[in-house]
């Protein structure tokens, strides 16, 4: 079964066609690296797959749900790490993660392991998020994705702003997610390290897919 299926998908940001006709099929368990220059439409593609954007034309399904009519179901079952970290500055790391766990109706017991996994457990959990560095914020945001245990991971530049150990951590998270049967789409400029990770590379330019290479791993 294909996890993502897009046909001639066009999506607008304001009046600008950020996605100008995307055809894409992603199967279960694939780890897809989305490459392309700045402004190519990588982030928009991930947000479209998360059910956050309206299709202007074309059609598509994500996790079997129709992109035109069933976006709420799609949103509930994906994990998106976007440019925003979606954290409340005045709440602590734990309060933020607890809130998002309860809001997403997932088990709060998953919060502590996720915090430990991302290295934001010990001295950080009592700290208001406003005091964290950009890299630490990003780790917390990743922890929020981990807590959701999504079937489809959509990671927009997950390596950005992280130190070497953080970047290794992201790689490990992706490997583990794939091993557990999840599908991963990630955009990254860290081409070298993600080459190892990805089973497939697609190139986005001008809001269309211009290259698609599947590696025999």
């Amino acid at each position, binding site marked *: 079964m294909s996890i993502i299926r897009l046909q001639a998908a066009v999506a607008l940001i*304001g*009046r600008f066609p950020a996605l100008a*006709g995307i055809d894409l099929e992603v199967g279960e368990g694939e780890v897809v690296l989305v490459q392309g220059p700045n402004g190519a439409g990588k982030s928009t593609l991930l947000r479209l797959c998360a059910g956050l954007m309206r299709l202007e034309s074309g059609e598509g399904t994500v996790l079997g749900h129709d992109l035109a009519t069933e976006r709420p179901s799609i949103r509930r079952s994906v994990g998106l790490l976007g440019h925003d970290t979606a954290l409340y500055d005045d709440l602590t790391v734990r309060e933020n993660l607890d809130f998002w766990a309860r809001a997403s109706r997932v088990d709060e017991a998953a919060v502590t392991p996720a915090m430990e996994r991302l290295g934001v457990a010990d001295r950080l959990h009592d700290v208001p998020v406003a005091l964290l560095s950009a890299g630490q914020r990003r780790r917390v945001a990743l922890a929020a994705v981990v807590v959701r245990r999504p079937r489809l991971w959509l990671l927009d530049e997950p390596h950005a702003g992280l130190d070497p150990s953080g970047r290794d951590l992201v790689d490990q998270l992706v490997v583990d997610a794939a091993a557990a049967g999840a599908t991963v789409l990630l955009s990254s400029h860290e081409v070298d390290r993600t080459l190892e990770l990805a089973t497939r590379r697609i190139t986005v*330019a*001008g*809001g269309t897919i211009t290259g698609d290479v599947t590696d025999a791993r």
Partner: protein
Amino acid sequence: MQEINHTGSRTTRLLGAAVIVGLVALVLLGWFVAPEDDDQQDAVRMIFVHVPSAIWTYIAFVTTAIGSVMWLVRRSVWWDTVAAAAAEIGVLFCGLTLFTGSVWGRPTWNTYWDWGDVRLVTTLILFLMMIGYLSVRSLGGPESATATRAAIVGVMAAAILPIVNRSVEWWENNTLHQKSSLTDGNLEDMTLFTLVVGLIVWGLFFWWAILHRFRIAWLEREIRSSDLDRALVERRAEGEPGASPLEERV
């Protein structure tokens, strides 16, 4: 494609001509034929502008509310455009109503403005809410988002206006307004006739203006959607080999 450089049509030209003829007739009737009032003397002639513009203001407002609902329920672009056009013309008429009302109020009530008057204050608040509606319209952003925002404001205003009216009515019960100029039977025959002519003339003007406003808005939309086709071609061209200096990196 035929080039369009105006929004006229046979209907609007006929309407426009009728408005001009009607206005001339209205001025003649209002000024020379309709008798002056026993109490208000010449000031009563204000009725020929004030009452029609007030009535059409409320028709415009109801139209905007209906259009708003139709956008929210059916995502009807046509109704959204109607709602926007009616709101703009409605604000114009509402301003005219308030202006003529206070000009008329001076000689008859001896004040430009009376806070105790229900219809006056309600209309003022309606005016302010419609200005809010128009400012939401001009916020920019994606078209559908603007339409949704505006539609919610339109529905909210319609839902609240009865409460505004109620609250002003309870607030001060010493209303100065004539109960209803049309139905209390105190009008002279010629005054009543002129008033009906006024209603029709202002109505023709109202529809003339709305049709034009609607067509302008509709054409703007058309231009933008034909822009979309061009934008799509341009956007795809960015992805052609060699179009981007970053390409070879991939």
